[in-house]
C-alpha cells in the first residue's frame, strides 16, 4: 500500500495544472475552427459513413506541436493527380473542449460523441487555409501528470473531400469550385413571340401566314386559331426542309421536328415522284444568326424521295418557319392565330447557396455561383438532370430562370477532370451508328 503522507495530485493541484496548461495554450497556441461531423447516414454492412454533413464550427485555441512545418508526405504526384498529404498534431485543453464545444455537441443527435473530440471531425487551420480531418485523438500524452490527463492531442491529416454538404463548405468560396459543379446557361433575354395572320377560304381557314418568326423557341410553339368559327387547327415548325430542282411530277413534302434548336427527325409526308435524282437538291431553312445549318442527305428510288438521313442536326433553329393548317374548320368570318410565347429569360435575383428546384423535373441542386451578365448559374449536388427549357426556381429568392443549355459532362472543376476532353476527341474517332452510348454532349 502506498504512503498516504505523500500526495500524487490533489484536486486543487490538478486544477492548477489544468489552468497552467490552458494559459500556456492561450499564449502560444493559435485559434482554429473545430468542425464536428454530423453523421446523417451510416452503412451497417460495410461499417462506413454514407452521408456526413458539416454545419457548425467552434473557435478554440490549439497548440501546433510540429512548429517546423507539416508532417506527412507533403505534395505527391499520384496516379490520381496531386495528393497533398500534410499532417499536423494539435494540442487542445480537455477542459476547454468540454466547456466550449462538448456541451453543444451533446445536444446534437447527429453527432456521435459529445464528450471528446471525435475522429472524423474537421479542424480548419487558418494559417494555411486547410481542412484537416482528425484521424486519432491521443488522450494519454503526457501520461497522467498528478493523476490526470489535461490535454487531447489531435493527430490530423488533410481532409479527403467528396462533395460533402453543410454550411461550412457552402460558405467557403474557394471550395465551391472543388468537386463536381455544373454550369447551366439560361436565356439572357426573353425571346420574341411569333405572330401570324389567318387567310380564309370561304368560311374555313386556308393558310396561316407568319408576320414575325419570333426567337428563342426551344420546342415548336402551339398555334391557336381564334375567331367566330370552330374546328380549325394548325401546327408550327421551326425549320423547313424542301427538295428543289429535279423537275418532279409531284413535289415531295417533308416536315422536320426540331428540339433545343436541333433538327432531331425528319418525316417524309409525301415522297413526290418523277425527280431527276442527279438534279434534285435538298434545301434546309437557315437557323438564327450564329447557328449552324443542318446537313441532310436525301435518298431517292426511281425518282421518289424515300429517305432523309440527318448527318448533322444543326443548331439555333429557334424561330418559327412554317405553319401547317391541319384542319380548316368552318363558320369563320374573321379569324386570328395566336402563337405561344417562347421561354422567358431571368426574373428576380438569386441568393447564393440557396437550393434551386426544376419546375417540371423536380430536380434540386445547390446554387453556388451565378452571373447575370454572362447568363449562367453554377449548380452543385444535383439530385436529377434538369431538362432544357424548364424553369429553375430559387427556393429562398423565388428568382426564376429558363434553362437554355448545359453540359452535364462538363464540370467547372477542371483540376482533375478529362471526361469532356475524352468525349470530344472520341466523337471524332469513334463510329457510332446511332448515338454515343457512353454519354451525350451538347
Amino acid at each position, binding site marked *: 500500500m502506498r504512503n498516504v503522507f505523500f500526495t500524487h495530485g490533489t484536486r486543487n493541484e490538478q486544477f492548477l495544472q489544468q489552468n497552467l496548461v490552458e494559459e500556456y495554450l492561450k499564449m502560444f497556441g493559435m485559434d482554429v475552427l473545430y468542425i464536428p461531423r454530423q453523421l446523417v447516414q451510416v452503412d451497417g454492412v460495410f461499417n462506413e459513413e454514407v452521408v456526413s454533413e458539416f454545419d457548425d464550427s467552434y473557435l478554440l485555441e490549439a497548440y501546433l506541436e510540429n512548429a517546423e512545418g507539416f508532417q506527412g508526405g507533403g505534395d505527391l*504526384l499520384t496516379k*490520381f493527380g496531386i495528393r497533398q498529404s500534410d499532417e499536423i498534431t494539435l494540442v487542445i485543453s480537455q477542459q476547454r473542449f468540454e466547456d466550449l464545444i462538448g456541451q453543444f455537441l451533446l445536444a446534437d443527435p447527429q453527432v456521435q460523441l459529445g464528450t471528446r473530440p471525435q475522429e472524423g471531425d474537421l479542424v480548419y487551420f487558418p494559417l494555411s487555409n486547410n481542412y484537416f480531418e482528425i484521424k486519432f485523438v491521443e488522450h494519454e500524452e503526457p501520461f497522467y501528470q498528478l493523476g490526470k490527463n489535461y490535454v487531447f492531442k489531435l*493527430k490530423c491529416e488533410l481532409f479527403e*473531400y467528396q462533395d460533402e454538404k453543410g454550411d461550412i463548405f457552402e460558405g467557403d468560396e474557394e471550395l465551391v469550385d472543388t468537386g*463536381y459543379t455544373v454550369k447551366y446557361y439560361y436565356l439572357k433575354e426573353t425571346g420574341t413571340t411569333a405572330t401570324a395572320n389567318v387567310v380564309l377560304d370561304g368560311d374555313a381557314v386556308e393558310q396561316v401566314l407568319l408576320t414575325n418568326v419570333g426567337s428563342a423557341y426551344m420546342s415548336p410553339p402551339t398555334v391557336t386559331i381564334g375567331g367566330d368559327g370552330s374546328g380549325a387547327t394548325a401546327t408550327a415548325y421551326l425549320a423547313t426542309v424542301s427538295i428543289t430542282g429535279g423537275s418532279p*411530277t409531284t413535289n415531295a413534302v417533308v416536315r422536320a421536328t426540331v428540339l433545343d434548336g436541333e433538327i432531331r427527325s425528319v418525316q417524309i409526308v409525301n415522297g413526290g415522284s418523277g425527280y*431527276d435524282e442527279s438534279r434534285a437538291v435538298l434545301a434546309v431553312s437557315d437557323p438564327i444568326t450564329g447557328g449552324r445549318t443542318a446537313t441532310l442527305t436525301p435518298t*431517292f428510288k426511281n425518282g421518289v424521295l424515300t429517305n432523309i438521313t440527318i448527318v448533322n442536326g444543326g443548331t439555333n433553329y429557334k424561330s418559327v418557319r412554317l405553319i401547317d393548317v391541319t384542319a380548316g374548320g368552318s363558320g369563320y368570318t374573321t379569324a386570328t392565330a395566336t402563337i405561344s410565347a417562347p421561354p422567358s429569360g431571368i426574373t428576380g435575383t438569386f441568393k447564393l447557396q440557396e437550393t434551386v428546384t426544376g419546375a417540371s423535373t423536380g430536380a434540386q441542386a445547390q446554387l453556388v455561383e451565378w452571373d447575370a451578365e454572362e447568363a449562367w448559374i453554377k449548380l452543385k449536388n444535383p439530385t436529377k438532370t434538369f431538362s432544357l427549357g424548364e424553369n429553375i426556381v430559387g427556393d429562398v429568392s423565388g428568382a426564376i430562370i429558363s434553362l437554355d443549355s448545359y453540359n452535364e459532362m462538363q464540370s467547372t472543376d477542371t483540376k482533375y477532370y478529362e471526361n469532356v476532353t475524352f468525349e470530344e476527341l472520341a466523337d471524332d474517332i469513334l463510329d457510332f451508328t446511332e448515338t454515343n452510348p457512353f454519354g451525350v454532349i451538347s
Partner: protein
Amino acid sequence: MLGTYTYNKIIRKVVVAFGTIFNNIEVRKENTDGSTYSRMKVPLAYGPRQKFLARLTEQPDLNQKVGITVPRISFEMTGISYDSARKLSPITAILKADGTNAVKKQFTPVPYNIDFELNIISKTNDEALEIAEQILPFFQPSYNVTIKLVEAMEDFRDIPITLNSISYTDDYEGTFDSRKITLFTLTFTAKTYIFGPVGSASPIKKAKVDYHASVDLSSARQVSYEVTPKALTDQNKDGSTSIVSAITDKTLTFEVADENVISIGGFIEIGNEVMKVKSKPGNSKITVVRAQNGTSAAAHAAGAAVDLVNAADDLLLDSGDDFGFNELISVFE
C-alpha cells in the same frame, strides 16, 4: 530506308476510345426515404502527366484546401505487344477511291495488343463497388468499340477491349496514423492494329492484252485486245437537248428539240432513265429502247432534259462508280 513519314495516331486513338468508355460514371447517394441526396460525375483522367503541368493546373495557389477529392478514376497504358494470332498476309493492300482519277493504297496493318490499367479510388467501399458495378456488366469479357483508325482510308475497325483481371484492396488494418485506401485496379487489353503509310495511285482505266503467235516476244503481235470503262449513266448533266412533249413510260418514238446531237446506237438519259436510240425516223423524232442499264421506265414531262451518255461521261468515271466496258480488238497482219 523506312523514312516514309507516317503518324496515324492509332495508339492515341485507342487511348481516347478507352478513356471515353468510363467518362460518364456517376456516384449517387440516397436519403433514407429513397430519394436522391446528391449525384456526382466521377472525374476521369489519364494518370501519367508532366509534373510541372500537374503542379500548375492542380495547385495554382500552391496549396490545396483539402488533400484530394474523391472518388476519382485514372487509367494508363501499361504495355504494347505484338499479337501473332491475328496476323494476316503482309502483301495484301487495301485500296480506296481518292477524288478524281486517284486511289489511296495501304498495306495490311500489324496487329498489336495494348494493355491498360484502370484505377478507381474512393472514400468508402460502397462507392468503389457502385463505380465497379457500372463498369463490369459491359465487359463480357470484352466490349467492342468501333474506331476510325485511319481516317484517310475510312478504315473503321471493331476493337475489342477485354477485361483481364480485377484486384481490390482495402487497407484498413494497422495504426490509426496510417491512411485507409480503397482501391480497385482493373486491367484491360485492347486489340488494335497499327497501320503504315497511305500511298496514292491512279485507278486503272485501260487494260490491254497483246497476243503473239510465237514465244519470242520481240516478234510482232497478232491481236491486241483493249478495254476501257464505259459510263452506264450520264455523269456530266450535259442537257444537250430536251423532249418536246410529255411521254409516258411506254412511248417508244418521240420528238426532241434537236435530233442532230443524238446518234443512232447511242445512249441517252432522261430523268433517271437510260434509253438506247434505235433510229431516227425523221421530223426530229427518235425511236428508243426504254429502261436500259438497270434503270426503270418512267413518264417524263415536256421539256425534260436529254443527257447524252457518251465518251465525255466515260472520262468522268471514277473509282467506286458502276461501269461497263468499251472493247477494242485490233488484228495485226
